[in-house]
């Protein structure tokens, strides 16, 4: 028999007892819907958390920390890091303490010297004014907290004003010395932007401004890779150079591990429903076998092989599984969609942020249907074998 024939035959036999077929399929629908619903919740929550931790941009970053005494982040080493294949740019950073003089006010701030490109990546955004763009300009961004002493409403007026920074250097032990030995320690900058989201009192300056201060080693280096795929290779190369390399991916994979475990637990809960459904399929196929014993006898008498009969039964079970899986996926997915919609409309009512709670990835949808198919075929194996083994003469006499 051809596969098309088997398919059409199985559809015809399933149609003969529509109610029973529908109920059996409904069992699978419930099982698969439960799995899809629960696992989608797992996926959604996972995405939600990961999204909170890392924007997509940060997934391509690697933080390089020195491993003294051998691996120091000297300028030479930073250039070497920048030459690794797959690295888009490097941003050495260095933190200092400083006093900012603005008009009559003096404010103590933490000074972050970095590559302006890294500002973006670090998610420090100027909410007022603009970001640092040029690595050469004498420009700074100031956190709003640093400006607390000023009236916040004046923030806008501060953009474009000139500020003087008295920069305190670190000694060999890492302590700040409040001495000003070098005229380069006092520099004038133009405030170009104000960052709202930063908790501390801090000022961001382009790392180039420190060139004159002859800083030998940096605190850390941020590497931006060209794509997410190369992160692993670049990390390995950085480690080979003796540095400590870490990326947000490490954290994310940790979180993913926890969520995978949660998804498996949720999936198992859904699987219990599917297990019950598979017993339903077994039951339906066994009853169908008894009802059709006579018919199987006829088919064998006119030339059906044991394999033909066995496959006819397996195809029926597979059909139940496929349609159960298909509609189960649809129901589970729609339920998630419904809850997303409800949650979002509630959120918008209370001015909250709209979030996607249920997420059903395409690959998981495919697996859900495949799983339903497999479970159904498995439940159909025994009845199908029995049908295949029926002796034609006994079967044909069976009424």
């Amino acid at each position, binding site marked *: 028999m051809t596969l098309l024939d088997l398919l059409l035959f199985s559809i015809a036999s399933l149609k003969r007892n529509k109610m029973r077929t529908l109920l059996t399929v409904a069992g699978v629908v419930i099982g698969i819907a439960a799995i899809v619903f629960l696992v989608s919740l797992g996926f959604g929550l996972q995405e939600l958390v990961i999204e909170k931790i890392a924007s997509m941009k940060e997934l391509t970053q690697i933080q390089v920390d020195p491993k003294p005494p051998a691996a120091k982040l000297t300028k030479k080493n930073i250039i070497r890091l920048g030459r690794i294949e797959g690295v888009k740019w490097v941003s050495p950073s260095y933190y200092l303490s400083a006093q900012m003089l603005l008009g009559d006010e003096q404010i103590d701030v933490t000074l972050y010297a970095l590559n302006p490109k890294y500002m973006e990546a670090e998610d420090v955004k100027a909410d007022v004014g603009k970001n640092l763009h040029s690595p050469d300009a004498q420009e700074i961004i100031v956190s709003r907290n640093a400006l607390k002493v000023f009236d916040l409403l004046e923030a806008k007026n501060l953009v474009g004003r000139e500020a003087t920074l008295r920069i305190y250097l670190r000694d060999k032990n890492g302590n700040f010395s409040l001495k000003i030995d070098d005229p380069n320690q006092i520099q004038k900058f133009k405030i170009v932007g104000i960052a709202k989201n930063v908790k501390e009192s801090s000022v961001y300056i382009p790392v180039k401004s420190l060139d004159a201060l002859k800083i030998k080693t940096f605190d850390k280096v941020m590497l931006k890779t060209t794509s997410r795929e190369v992160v692993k290779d670049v990390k390995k190369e950085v480690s080979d150079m003796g540095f400590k390399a870490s990326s947000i991916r490490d954290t994310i994979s940790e979180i993913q591990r926890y969520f995978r475990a949660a998804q498996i637990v949720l999936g198992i809960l859904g699987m219990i429903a599917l297990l019950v459904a598979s017993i339903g399929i077994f039951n339906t196929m066994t009853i169908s076998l008894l009802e059709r014993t006579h018919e199987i006898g006829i088919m*064998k*008498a006119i*030339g*059906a092989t044991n394999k033909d009969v066995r496959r006819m039964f397996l195809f029926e079970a597979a059909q139940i599984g496929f349609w159960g899986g298909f509609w189960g996926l649809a129901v589970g997915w729609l339920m998630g969609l419904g809850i997303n919609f409800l949650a979002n409309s509630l959120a918008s009512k209370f001015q909250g942020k709209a979030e996607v709670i249920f997420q059903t990835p395409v690959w998981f949808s495919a697996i859900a249907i495949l799983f339903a198919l497999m479970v159904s075929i498995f439940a159909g194996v025994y009845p199908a074998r029995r049908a295949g083994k029926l002796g034609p003469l006994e079967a044909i006499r069976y009424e």
Partner: protein
Amino acid sequence: MARKPIIKVVNLAKHYKMGPSTVRALDKINLEIYSGELIIIFGQSGCGKSTLMSLLAGLDKPTSGEILVRGENLSNMSANQLSKYRRTKIGMVFQQYNLIPNMTALDNISLPLAFDGTSRRRRAKRARNVLELIGVSKLAERTASEMSGGQQQKVSIARAWVTSPWIVFADEPTGNLDSKSADEVIRLIKRLNEKSKRTVLLITHNPEYLSLADRVIYLKDGKIVRISGQIKGASRRQKRNELEQLSGVGRGVAENLFAANYRNMLDVASADTDELAKVKGVTKNMASVIKKEAQSIMMAREGFSEEE
């Protein structure tokens, strides 16, 4: 003319264990059936005729003995080979019609072809051809519940015929039918046997049909009590008489025709004129005349047995 039997049965026995005693359903059956014959297996119920058919159809295994179909021993065949034998070499007609209930007549008829992997289009065409041959094209789209017993049986005959089998087994095909339908079904089987020259094994307990058979095998208590013998002789005389109907054919010429293997009207109608003229007592002129005559007699007969 020495012919090889299509079915040869040697010392066939089928015994059932029933508690402590053994029931000998069939015992010491020896039989030879030739291609094109219409054989009736006749006997009272319980005489073993259905058991014999089950064995010949490969539905059951004998206790001992051999069944050779064109030289091949059924006992040596695997389950798959037996399935293939059933769907390509034999056709089966049952007393209960045994159509698959949710399928149309057309689908039922094409079922053996489906098991054989024939394409949907080809088997639909074949099924329609057979329905037309049997004269019940109008039943094509009906399911079993929409047909009378006689109609169902005709469809089941079509199903047996669709694969062009060597042998068709019919087990009490009229057992569930009223006398009119029974008559139609029997005449249909007879006509198909003559027309397509397929071997037919008809099982019946109705003595009315015995005259239709080329040979009758009488079964009683699992044993053949009479085989061919007089019956075959009677049949031969009857056939010869049939040929005597042809103009200019006397008793002697009829004997010669029979000896040259022209046994009935169909044989003459489908004969080659030149070959026919080689028979002793038949001139070339006469050969073409009697052939034409036989053809018109056959046509009249077929028309007669066509659906009204």
